[in-house]
């Protein structure tokens, strides 16, 4: 399956280029799909998540802002207050790929309902996709197919998974 990377223009005016991907045969980008999801019981969490991304635009995407689940980088900031009040699930996960402080790929996500993402019906496919793409991207960077120091170098880049 062909995967196309595309720059999210309006999020990339600061220190970080945020990308997303489109999978072959789909009309929408992965991050668009995430944005379209409604999380009525997790509104406060969504505010925190989006505001962390917004702050990254000013500060750069420091590795410490990410929570690592194997080589898929979920990006949640959940305050203790929210964690304590939420007994039902593990909160929202937006899976992404951290490339460096200036480049991040935002993928898709959902509510994590099981401690282990592989056991969660909602996030499993997003988690797996993030891992697969992350692995191929790592190889492309090592093989110098992409120069990650160059501006917009990932825009319109294609890989096969």
């Amino acid at each position, binding site marked *: 399956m062909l995967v196309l990377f595309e720059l999210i223009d309006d999020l990339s005016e600061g220190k970080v280029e945020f990308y997303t991907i489109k999978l072959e045969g789909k009309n929408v980008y992965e991050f668009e799909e995430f944005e379209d999801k409604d999380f009525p019981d997790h509104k*406060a969490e969504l505010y925190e998540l989006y505001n962390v991304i917004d702050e990254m635009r000013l500060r750069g995407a420091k590795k410490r802002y990410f929570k690592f689940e194997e080589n898929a980088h979920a990006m949640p900031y959940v305050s203790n207050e929210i964690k304590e009040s939420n007994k039902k699930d593990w909160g929202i996960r937006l899976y992404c790929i951290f490339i460096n402080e200036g480049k991040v790929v935002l993928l898709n996500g959902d509510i994590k309902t099981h401690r282990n993402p592989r056991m969660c019906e909602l996030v499993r496919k997003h988690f797996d996709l993030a891992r697969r793409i992350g692995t191929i991207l790592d190889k492309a960077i090592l093989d110098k197919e992409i120069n990650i120091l160059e501006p917009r170098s990932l825009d319109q880049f294609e890989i096969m998974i």
Partner: protein
Amino acid sequence: MKSKRFNAVISETPAEVRAHIKFCMDVTDRLHELLLLKFDGKQKLLAEKMGKSEAEVSKWFSGIQNFTTKTLTKLSVAFGEPIIVVCTHEADEHAIFEQVKVPYSKKATELQIDIIGRLHPVEKLHKESEIMPYIKSIEHVIGLQSSKYA
């Protein structure tokens, strides 16, 4: 492409949530800065200094944390440097320097202090009599932070 709802969600975020995120990320950044400066970036050395387990210290450095003031105070003592500084209404007699930080992405510029203590960009004050001996500072000063324990 453009994001669909990102900016709308940012706009509707309550001000206190936004401020909280900024504060937590400031603290996280400061901790990493001090760890590098004081302990060569090694959590193990900080853990030894604080008499804590490495696992506990490692937790503080994973992701963005909500710290209690007690933990922040302990960390400040271990680092020998403040992590956060409170704006006191009176001059802090223990402060030995003033710290002015450039906010992200802002251009440095020169500011002057007028005779009643307000800050202005250099070009806005013309009369010599209105100007205190000027200081070099930055645009959008976010706080003159007294720092370092005496």
